Structures are given as structure tokens and as C-alpha cells.
């Protein structure tokens, strides 16, 4: 094919005869058609007119001179060409096309290069912008992820105890109010370490911190996954057992905790001996109208009972109504 001025100015053009046969294709358009010898074949062999509807004959194209046309490639249907038609010599038609909004994937699919676009075409600038936009979107998405991560971490820190990694008093409030409002029965265990003050006073705070960490580990290994272990502060811990009100099981758990706590803890060639005192209250569905503070007070009262009984033991809080009804039967 000899080069025409149109090949330079509009490399994506199609030149048709009056009968709709291809007279010439711009060099870049020829790349899209991938046909050995398209000249002489019919326009509709390679293209369909998608918009406007119902254009199936060449005569229908000329009346649309200057209007926007949308063509599809018959051999690569997913690619659309934006086109405009104009009258040419000898009753022919010339159509200039661009790859429109599908530019980026078409460039990839047809292996188009710099030289396939006229220097006046903004296609390269559009490709540049699409890539710049993708890079910036990635940067902004990365920033969002980092902020999200920082938020999650801040929330975790707000609800956890820095020394032991257990949950803290703030977390306990949330857990209790959630249980109460969802009407789930549960048991609350308050636990103080025995002889902890002694460790702190004789072996120092580092030893004390180590003991607290070991105690936290014990508590976490003894409970179920769904139970919550909270460090209130100092050597005071609270355990929350949702859906558990069976005294026998709570007793077994308490015994196990006390046995584990009494195992010697080594720190810096020194041995620390501690134990635990436990107070338990069980909140059955009928008692859920009381407040969280009330339940904590009950557990604390039971704990006081254990300490009065000589420590290293557990006690249950007895609700007043239960005590009263027992008295009645006596």
C-alpha cells in the first residue's frame, strides 16, 4: 500500500468505496484487523455498527456524516471503536476511528506502540494518566491500610493490659454490658494472688512483674477460648465465663487454678511461691436485671469469704433470695 496523507494524520482510518468495499486502511487500523489482504473485502466483513442501532448497509452510513458511531470488531468483539464518517471522493466514505475508553486494554491486546498513534493524538497522554492514577490510588490505598492498622492497634491497646497482654478494666465493662444486654447467663470469678506483696517486697518489682506475667499465662491456659481473662490492676484478676453456671465445673476450674498458681515460679535464680484466692458469683437469667457493679461486688464478697477462710481456696457468692429460701425450709 502506498502511504497517503491520511496514514500520517489518522492512522486509524478506514477508506471505503461507494459499495462499501475497503479501499485502504490506515497502518494502525490494519494492525487491529489482522487480515493479510483486507482491500476489496466488505466493510461489514470486519466491522459491525453497534450505535446507532440497525445500521447494516453501507448506504445507511453516509447520512450519519459527522455523527458519533460506535463500531465493534467482528474478530475481537470486546473492543469498540469510536468513529466518525465523512464523504470522500468517488462517492466513497472515510471513517476515522479511535480506541475510545477501552484504549488501555486494546493497546495491550493489539500490541500497539508509540508509533501507532499520531503525535497529535492524546492517546499517549491518556495512557500516562491512567498509569499515574493507578499509582496514586495504590499510594492512597496503602495509606488507608496503614491508618486502619494503626486504629486497630490503638483499639487493642486501649482494651489491653500492657504488662500481661490480658484485657483490662475498660474491656471488662464492655464484656459485662454486652452479656447483660444480650441476656446471657454467666459466671464471674474474682481472683487475688496470695503472697504477691511478699514477692514484690523481697525480690523487687521486676520479680513481681514476672510473677504477674506467669499468673496471666496460667489463667489463659486454664480457661476456654471464649472466656475472658482480665487484669483489673495490681494482683487482681477477673475471669468471665459466658453460658457457664455449673458450680461443679467452676469448682474444678478453681481448684486447677489454685494448684497451678502454687507451682514455684523462677526468677533470676530465685524461687517465688504464690497462690490464689477466688470468689465466684453466678448470674442466672433471672438475675440479669442487676448492674455489672453489683455482680463484681458479689464476686468480691465471695473472695473476701475465701480470704477469711485462710486463702488459697474458692467460695461462691450466695444470693440473698437463695439464703432466705433455705432458711425457710429449716
Amino acid at each position, binding site marked *: 500500500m502506498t502511504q497517503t496523507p491520511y496514514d500520517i494524520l489518522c492512522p486509524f482510518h478506514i477508506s471505503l468505496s461507494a459499495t462499501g468495499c475497503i479501499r485502504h486502511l490506515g497502518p494502525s487500523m490494519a494492525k487491529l484487523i489482522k487480515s493479510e489482504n483486507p482491500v476489496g473485502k466488505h466493510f461489514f466483513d470486519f466491522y459491525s455498527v453497534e450505535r446507532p442501532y440497525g445500521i447494516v448497509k453501507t448506504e445507511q452510513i453516509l447520512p450519519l456524516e459527522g455523527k458519533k458511531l460506535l463500531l465493534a470488531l467482528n474478530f475481537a468483539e470486546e473492543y469498540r471503536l469510536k468513529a466518525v464518517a465523512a464523504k470522500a471522493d468517488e462517492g466513497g466514505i472515510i471513517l476515522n476511528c479511535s480506541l475510545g475508553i477501552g484504549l488501555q486494554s486494546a493497546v495491550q491486546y493489539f500490541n500497539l506502540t508509540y*508509533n501507532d498513534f499520531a503525535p497529535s493524538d492524546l492517546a499517549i497522554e491518556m495512557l*500516562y494518566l491512567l*498509569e499515574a*492514577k493507578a499509582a*496514586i490510588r495504590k499510594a492512597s490505598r*496503602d495509606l488507608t491500610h496503614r491508618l486502619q492498622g494503626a486504629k486497630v492497634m490503638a483499639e487493642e491497646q486501649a482494651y489491653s493490659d500492657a504488662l500481661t497482654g490480658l484485657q483490662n478494666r475498660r474491656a471488662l465493662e464492655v464484656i459485662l454490658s454486652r452479656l447483660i444486654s444480650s441476656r446471657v447467663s454467666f459466671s464471674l470469678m474474682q481472683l487475688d494472688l496470695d503472697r504477691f506483696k511478699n514477692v514484690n517486697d523481697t525480690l523487687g518489682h521486676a520479680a513481681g512483674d514476672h510473677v504477674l506475667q506467669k499468673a496471666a499465662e496460667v489463667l489463659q491456659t486454664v480457661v476456654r477460648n471464649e472466656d475472658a481473662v482480665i487484669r483489673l490492676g495490681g494482683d487482681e484478676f477477673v475471669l468471665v465465663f459466658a453460658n457457664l453456671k455449673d458450680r461443679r465445673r467452676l469448682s474444678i476450674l478453681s481448684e486447677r487454678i489454685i494448684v497451678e498458681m502454687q507451682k514455684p515460679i523462677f526468677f533470676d535464680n530465685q524461687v517465688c511461691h504464690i497462690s490464689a484466692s477466688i470468689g465466684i458469683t453466678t448470674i442466672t437469667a433471672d438475675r440479669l436485671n442487676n448492674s455489672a457493679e453489683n455482680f463484681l461486688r458479689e464476686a468480691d464478697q465471695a473472695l473476701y469469704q475465701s480470704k477469711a477462710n485462710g486463702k488459697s481456696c474458692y467460695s461462691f457468692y450466695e444470693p440473698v433470695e437463695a439464703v432466705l429460701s433455705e432458711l425457710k425450709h429449716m
Partner: protein
Amino acid sequence: MLGLINKAIENFAIDTYGKRFWNSFTRRHLNGEFTFEPLLEYEHALTFRLIDWLAEARSKTSADIMEDIGTFLVSQRNGEALRRLLRFGGANFVEFIFSLDELNERSEIALKDLNLPQLSVERINQNSVSVRVDQSWPGFEHVMAGILHSLADDYGALVFINVSPPEGGSAYLVLELIQHHFTEGRKFSLA
């Protein structure tokens, strides 16, 4: 200054001198471990202090550090995005060089707040051009020298680049093109 620039300096320092170097660097100069956010705005002067501190820490001149940063920006694995964006400037190295006239506008339509220095390209003779770099970012001509060296390799062109010191508010890069097509260069597909 947009954090993107400081982040690039941070990436350069970590990639070239290691994470430990960067951590002790930021502990010394930025009050603790620190990482820049590419999309946040930082004090303009901080960027240039960063470069001077890096130069001091590595016993190099600031100009050398900036040229190394320029090279790093387009030649490393994580410089691929920028390399591609620059290559949209022209089909060959000569076209690319003349596209530098528009670098400021091209970066602005991509990222409004970047405010790159204005460059202007003039032909000196058949094989040489000069690139004037305004001094809104003092020393930016050295970064450009690093970028242009790498991009010349990328296009497969052989070029000599000479940086002349700033004078009357502008610095000049003089590029002497020895061969347009010295090697095959690196492949560049548009999409």
C-alpha cells in the same frame, strides 16, 4: 513538600544503606523511628535538610547523594512506576528529552500538589541540548542528572551529561548525545 519526595529519599536510604542505618538516622534527626507518608504534606525545607544529613552521614556531597537518588528512582525495582511514567514522554530518547519541557505540567495533571521545578530544554547544536532547571528545589539538577543517565540506558542511548552550577536562579544540564541507538535498551510497552 509532598511526602512522596521524602518517602523516595527514605526508600533510597533504606535500599542503599539498610534499614538499621535509616532507623539510627531518624532517631538522630527526626526524634525516633520515623516513616514518611507519601500523600501528606511536610515542611519544604525538611527535604533539603534530609539530603544534607544523608550526605554528612555517608561522607558524600549533597550533589552526589541527589544524583544517586535520581538513579535509584528509575532504575530499581520500586522505581518501575516512575520509569514508565517518564517513558510516556517520548518514543525515543531525543523525544523524551524534549518532553522535559512539559515535565512540570505532566506531573501536575497526575498529582496536583507535586510542584516539580520548571525545566526548559533548548537545542545547542545537532547533538547537544541544554536543560535549564529552576532552583525552586535547590540541587534538583543533580537528581535529574541521575534520572537522565538511567533513562538514557533505558532507551539504549549513549549520552554525556554535564551539570553546571546554578547561576541567576537556574542551573543547567548539558546533554551531549553520542549515539541514539547504542544498545537495545529496555522494552517499553504502552499498557
